[in-house]
């Protein structure tokens, strides 16, 4: 019910905003062509991301899996347009990415809600930047809070919310802008298992209803298998894609189902083979 409601709202969201993407609701394609990232740290050139090539179809849900510090987050940041690549380029819906745009919204592990705003104003922040009038953006914020099951928390402050609720607010804050691409940087990484499972299911439902393109970074193998159309396994720094798995298991996928577990085991073997013994990630699946 809530999902149908969301879809119905989308046309409205686009019409109401000055420079929202002309795309209707639903995803766009992403082309990542030879994107790499190097930076200077303590006088030494560090290669964070080896040149990466990747084609993402509209509406695809891709999980990027790999140890911490393998450049997955950097890649999302570059796709979001928050930092420039050292080489290569990104095309979103066929157009070259040259800076941040609300057709691609990034969600952070720490939710990054603004503590000086209440929940409703946090959700409405992006609409305010787009020049939507106060009354209308408050109405839309309430609707999207309902979508993420947070009605009644409009006037709460960030410190009063649990980790899971914060991620829901962050999700509403992103969805209200009707982005074609959601870039999720371990958004559920800091949550307890139960909350994480619930949010995974909700994300999948929202994705199924809206057809947005989603790039989802995680170092939880089973999470990647449960969510992804494809799982891309990254090597440690400098990050590069070492193997790609197409996951064809029927949805919705249970984390406990033996097929999920078998698939996860296969991916984990690849991760292990490429990993130095001191790396983490293997205790996390």
């Amino acid at each position, binding site marked *: 019910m809530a999902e149908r409601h969301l879809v119905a709202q989308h046309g409205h969201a686009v019409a109401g905003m000055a420079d929202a993407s002309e795309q209707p609701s639903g995803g766009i394609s992403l082309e990542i062509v030879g994107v790499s990232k190097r930076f200077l740290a303590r006088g030494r050139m560090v290669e964070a991301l080896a040149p990466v090539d990747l084609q993402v179809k509209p509406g695809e849900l891709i999980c990027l899996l790999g140890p911490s510090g393998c450049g997955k987050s950097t890649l999302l*940041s570059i796709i979001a347009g928050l930092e420039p690549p050292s080489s290569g380029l990104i095309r979103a819906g066929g157009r070259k990415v040259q800076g*941040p745009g609300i057709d691609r919204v990034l969600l952070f592990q*720490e939710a990054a809600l603004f503590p000086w705003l*209440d929940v409703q104003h946090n959700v409405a922040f*992006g609409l305010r930047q787009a020049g939507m009038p106060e009354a209308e953006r408050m109405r839309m914020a309430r609707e999207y809070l309902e979508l993420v099951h947070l009605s009644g928390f409009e006037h709460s402050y*960030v410190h009063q919310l649990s980790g899971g609720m914060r991620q829901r607010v962050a999700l509403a804050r992103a969805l209200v802008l009707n982005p074609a691409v959601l870039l999720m940087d371990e958004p559920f990484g800091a949550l307890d298992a139960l909350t994480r499972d619930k949010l995974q299911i909700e994300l999948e439902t929202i994705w199924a209803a809206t057809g947005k393109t989603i790039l989802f970074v995680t170092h939880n193998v089973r999470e990647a298998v449960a969510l992804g159309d494809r799982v891309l396994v990254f090597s440690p720094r400098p990050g590069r894609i070492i193997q790609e798995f197409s996951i064809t298991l029927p949805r919705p996928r249970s984390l406990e189902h033996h097929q999920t577990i078998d698939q996860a085991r296969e991916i984990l073997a690849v991760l292990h083979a490429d990993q130095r013994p001191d790396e983490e990630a293997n205790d996390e699946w």
Partner: protein
Amino acid sequence: MSGEMTTMLAEQSRLGRARVMPWIRRLIFYLILLSIWEGIVRLEIWPPYLFPGPLIVANALWEGVTQGLFLPAALVSLRRLAIGYSISLSLGLVLGLLLGRNKLIQETVGSLVLGMQALPSVCWLPLAILWFGLNERAIIFVVVLGALFSITLGVEAGVKNTPPVYLKAARNLGARGVRLYTQVLLPAALPAILNGLKQGWSFAWRSLMAGELLYYTLSLGNLLQTGRDLNDAAQVMAVMVMIVIVGVTIDQILFAPVERRVRERWGLA
């Protein structure tokens, strides 16, 4: 039901007592303090014109107010403070933002601001008098320099301690240019800025009193000085009480509500 009511009422009166009790304790403390003061005066160690008792001071305060001397003086002082502090506030906000955001400015101007902060602003008074003459402008100049550096450093600290992820998130959601400053950096830095503002306010107040001691027009600082000239310790003390009252009142009106809101939003204890 009635049992519930009784416990609710009991709870309410308990909460009421919890609010009133600190005030009662405070009142008792001041009553004791005043009686000790009166007791020492009664020992007649010092002549009463040098060490008057609380009743005499209260009387001086009453007369000062009713004779129309203290309130106009306080208004003159507050006007200077308002002008000087507003200038410090505008300059401090801009300077603090620049220091917090620009490495070159921070390395150069930043060291100067730190040095200036170490210099009590009263030290500027002789120079101010040479430059402007002993007048309104000299006093406001000293007030501005009194508050400026505290405010600047507060804003700078706030901006620097703002987690970069807020800026990332804001840019990601479409915030650009000046809005990043007004809608993200400044509100994010508000707790630290508020500390700078409060410190700046108390420094401005001190600088003002120092300036007014030297400047012979009606003002709170000047009333202190005339009290000394007239050998009237009661007036001096009455004016001091007046200064404390004005300072505390302004703090309650200006800063306490903002502080409460910051604590509520950020969830600080």
